[in-house]
């Protein structure tokens, strides 16, 4: 028997949740943009900064060794979290955006030829769209957009029909940051691999909400950010299958990524260091590892079930408010609730909700083409995390009702 999910206990782990906003209780419903940090992460970073800090992979002195050990232990922690085969497959980067740019530039640079095709979905965040536009422009390749249905789910059949002899890469989000749809990543990757097509999955909105097993998913590359997983900003992960990473040239040049250097040339370090030029975000990696410990101590299944219950409560309550339209109604949906309210622009909604202590995101969510497709300038978006409770949902709904009153 597992113990019931104790959200009050979880909330007490997050110091920021006890502060007030505009004199009101904070209902933090913007975890999709960035999650808050539990005490365990703050403490792990603090311990590193006060007891372990030095540069890594460099000195023989004790602190350098301690810092290196902690940094490499974090890499192993990440490997276990996503079930990668080896730590050689775990590249620390600044975040999802940098991970995707790395692959678009390095992989794209050696792979793409004029006339080749890359497929992304209509749901993509700019981070998984613009780097591919740039890679295509640089190489004369074509970017194709796999369509979604009215609920916001990928149209799998149409996507499969788009895979052709010139398709080189399928780059798709795991969970849509706007519509919440959970894409059938396993089927997508299996179809691509059968045809010798590479796959990159943008896991930014997935890793904090469900168990991610990169081997079970069958993807070649997987990208995510620490700050959406209860960890620090400025650090994220690029996972890549070892054979693929091994075959790629390095990205940035500098310290750490080299084996030997002469004035005229250099040879490259092994994986993963080949892709980690310069001093890394050591405390970030350590904080991320602590965040993964924390999330697993709660249990990803338990978190997912809790968030799903919140999503259902919020969905049902908002649908009672006249003028509400939900953006994103896929059967398989993550902890994302986008909506619009007739007669109230999302930006005004955001301000009024903030005034009531409710933090949501209002805007295009870095998905301008998707906004055009949906025919809205912007949406309001509530996203849920492990610490949200029924009161957060009720506060949201009351604030939305209040916004209707203000605009009467």
């Amino acid at each position, binding site marked *: 028997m597992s113990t019931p999910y104790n959200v009050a206990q979880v909330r007490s782990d997050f110091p920021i949740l006890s502060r007030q906003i505009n004199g009101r209780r904070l209902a933090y419903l913007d975890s999709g943009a960035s999650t808050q940090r539990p005490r365990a992460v703050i403490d792990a970073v603090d311990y590193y900064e006060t007891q372990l800090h030095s540069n890594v992979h460099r000195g023989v002195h004790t602190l350098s060794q301690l810092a290196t050990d902690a940094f490499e232990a974090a890499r192993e922690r990440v490997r276990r979290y996503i079930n990668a085969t080896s730590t050689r497959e775990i590249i620390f980067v600044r975040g999802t955006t940098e991970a995707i740019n790395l692959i678009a530039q390095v992989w794209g640079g050696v792979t793409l030829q004029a006339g080749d095709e890359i497929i992304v979905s209509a749901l993509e965040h700019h981070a998984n769209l613009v780097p591919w536009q740039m890679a295509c422009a640089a190489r004369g390749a074509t970017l194709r957009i796999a369509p979604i249905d009215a609920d916001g789910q990928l149209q799998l059949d149409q996507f499969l029909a788009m895979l052709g002899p010139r398709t080189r890469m399928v780059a798709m989000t795991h969970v849509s940051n706007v519509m919440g749809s959970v894409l059938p990543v396993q089927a997508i990757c299996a179809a691509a691999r059968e045809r010798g097509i590479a796959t990159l999955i943008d896991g930014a909105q997935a890793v904090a909400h469900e168990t991610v097993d990169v081997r079970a998913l069958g993807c070649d590359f997987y990208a995510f950010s620490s700050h959406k997983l209860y960890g620090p900003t400025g650090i994220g992960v690029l996972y890549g299958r070892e054979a693929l990473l091994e075959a790629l040239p390095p990205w940035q040049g500098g310290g750490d990524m080299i084996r030997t250097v002469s004035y005229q040339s250099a040879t490259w370090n092994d994986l993963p260091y080949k892709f980690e030029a310069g001093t890394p975000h050591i405390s970030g990696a350590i904080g991320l590892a602590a965040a993964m410990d924390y999330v697993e101590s709660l249990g990803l299944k338990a978190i997912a079930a809790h968030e799903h219950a919140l999503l259902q409560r919020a969905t049902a309550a908002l649908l009672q408010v006249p003028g509400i339209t939900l953006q994103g109604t896929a059967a398989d949906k993550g902890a994302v609730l986008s909506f619009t309210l007739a007669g109230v622009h999302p*930006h*005004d909604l955001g*301000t009024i909700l903030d005034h009531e202590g409710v933090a949501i995101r209002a805007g295009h969510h870095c998905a*301008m083409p998707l906004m055009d497709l949906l025919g809205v*300038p*912007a949406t309001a978006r509530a996203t849920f995390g492990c610490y949200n409770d029924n009161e957060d949902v009720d506060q949201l709904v009351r604030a939305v009702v209040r916004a209707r009153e*203000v605009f*009467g």
Partner: protein
Amino acid sequence: MELNELYREVILDHNRHPRNFGRLDPADALANGHNPLCGDKLTVTLRMDGDAISDLKFDGNGCAISVASASMMSEAVKGRPRAEVDALFDRVHALLTQADAPSDATLFRSDGIGKLAALSGVREFPARVKCASLCWHTLNAALANLQGAAPSPISTE
């Protein structure tokens, strides 16, 4: 910081019933404004009579603050010579951004444009200042286009 200082009745009214909404065709100048942060887009068209703005219309899609600000601006600048429009722009800008700018309507009322003072609540909501100023920047761009400069979209980001 109270909501009703931002969403004053005048602002809600101009949002619900924007004045001078639409496009002049033909127009002497046109400019597009865009606030990428929130997706607000608006187009200003105007006609000149000598040095004065004889007519002005705007259209587009935006939040209540940006629509109301554009609507009030359209009323305030019609019939005014450019020098007065420039002076008004400076005062609205100060009203939106400077804590000690005169926010009482008297200053504006002396010009017969007291309504614009309703925007003074915006400065308590820094995230919204760009919403209120978008129309003014777009108007400036339209006036600049009169000089025969190539029209360029104006962005408040």
